[in-house]
């Protein structure tokens, strides 16, 4: 064997690390059955079932209400539940610790995770919108505003996901992230319109990040609103709290 171990240490370029790390993160996401189920299959199934007049009746075209809800759900699944569970177990199995001992800077690792979540969301959005068109969807509004809402939702939910994953045990993270996903799905303005709740409850629930994102997406995509100011502000506030909190309290091992 001619392998030589004569030292020649040097970190590779940030761009190369970022590309390799993002590719690995995405590959692992799509290889993980639970992640695929959570972020791709369940949203598409719910898109189909919520379009059936089962739980409640709605005025207007049902699919035009359902699609913004499902887009909000997709962002919550990828940026919050999926990211929290994935990162929680990486922490538990010392992956984050091990990566901390390589030339990969933590900032590049976090950017890679962000890019992987964004890449996943692009795929989710494409599949959800394609399926929606098949179901007879008529989108309204400005796509740029839609992207802005989803991006802000990603930052807010991503920060919350990392906060949970970085502070709780992996098993607790798993339970908490799934439970919150379910609670926010039904009480956070995604599956059930908040105006179906009593007025006082509605006033409180509308400030949840899921409700703000869902409400904003409904206003734009369903009703063609220009700039849904209140939901945007709510999401900015959540992001402004969640990201610094995650940075402050995240434990790498």
């Amino acid at each position, binding site marked *: *064997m001619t*392998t*030589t*171990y*004569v*030292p*020649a*240490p*040097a*970190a*590779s*370029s940030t761009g*190369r*690390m970022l*590309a*390799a*790390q993002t590719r*690995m993160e995405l*590959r*692992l996401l799509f*290889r*993980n059955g639970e992640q695929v189920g959570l972020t791709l299959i369940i949203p598409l199934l719910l898109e189909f079932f919520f379009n059936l007049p089962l739980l409640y009746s709605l005025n207007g075209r049902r699919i035009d209400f359902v699609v913004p809800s499902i887009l909000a759900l997709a962002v919550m699944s990828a940026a919050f539940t999926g990211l929290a569970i994935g990162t929680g177990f*990486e922490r538990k*199995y*010392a*992956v984050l*610790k*091990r*990566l*901390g*001992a*390589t*030339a*990969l*800077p933590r900032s590049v690792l976090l950017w890679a995770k962000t890019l992987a979540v964004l890449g996943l969301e692009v795929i989710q959005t494409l599949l959800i919108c394609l399926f929606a068109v098949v179901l007879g969807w008529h989108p309204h509004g400005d796509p740029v505003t839609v992207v802005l809402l989803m991006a802000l939702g990603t930052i807010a939910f991503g920060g919350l996901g990392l906060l949970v994953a970085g502070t709780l045990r992996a098993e607790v993270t798993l339970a908490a992230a799934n439970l919150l996903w379910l609670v926010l799905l039904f009480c956070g303005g995604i599956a059930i319109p908040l105006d179906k709740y009593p007025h006082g409850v509605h006033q409180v629930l509308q400030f949840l990040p899921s409700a703000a994102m869902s409400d904003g997406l409904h206003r734009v995509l369903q009703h063609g609103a220009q700039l849904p100011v209140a939901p945007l502000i709510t999401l900015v506030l959540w992001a402004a709290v969640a990201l610094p909190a995650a940075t402050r309290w995240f434990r790498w*091992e």
Partner: protein
Amino acid sequence: MDAAAVQVDNLVKSYGAHPAVRGLSLRVERGELLALLGPNGAGKTTTIEICEGFRRADSGQVRVLGLDPIADARALRPRVGVMLQEGVGAYTGARTSELLRLFASYAANPLDTDELLARVGLQDSARQQVRRLSGGQKQRLSLALALVGRPELVFLDEPTAGMDPHARRATWDLIRELRRDGVSVVLTTHHLDEAEQLADRVTVVDSGQVVAAGTPAELTSSGAEGQIRFRAAAGLRLDSLQVALPVGAQASEPQRGQYLVVGEINPQLLATLTAWCAAQGVLAEQLSVERRSLEDVFLELTGRQLRT
């Protein structure tokens, strides 16, 4: 002149009320292989993890390649290879070759990943998911991950734990090649043979303190004596043997027909003994020469067995 590979002075670290490291000092020269030898819980891993920048010392000074492991982490990481004790510590869903290529992508001049995988005997497991590897295979992957960036210093925490004897020998060969090529190596072990076989110098640690340090030869020969045992017919004339032996050697018959010569063991002593037996017409059976091993050294220093 370059700074030492590792320089630790008066390192102290406690976990709550439990002191893990109590005033430990050591120095590793460039290109040298130092074995940190001691029982479980001696403070080996804590010391090494402080050098790796994972933990902060309570007090004392640590310099790795002349740099501070925490403050200068960004500059240090690419130059140091790390093998953690808790296994691969990496994406368990990734395939073996994917993971090695990922780590190679962090380095500007990585080793050839296929060649390295073959070198650690994992070429047949290249497409296997890391979670399906055996304990020994994970250790070998972990070693490859530590080396792929061509570091100038590697920390190997219990590198052969969980390996079968064959893999263990192969890993020893690889570690010798690292030394040959000028890589500085710090390894922890509680296997004496590993330290004796590989190390330029051994630092024996117990209860968070250095109890002995030196080359394996120094540690096993300093002040200590060895012994020769043999069996022969009962009642040999020990007074005659004693006259023949060099000054300082002591002959005795602890049990009938079993003889013991204690003294500084060298070829001369052995020749004298066998010549005396030949002159007496005595056939010495089961003759064995026992030098002090690191195990004896450790037992003497701490009053405890190394392996618990």
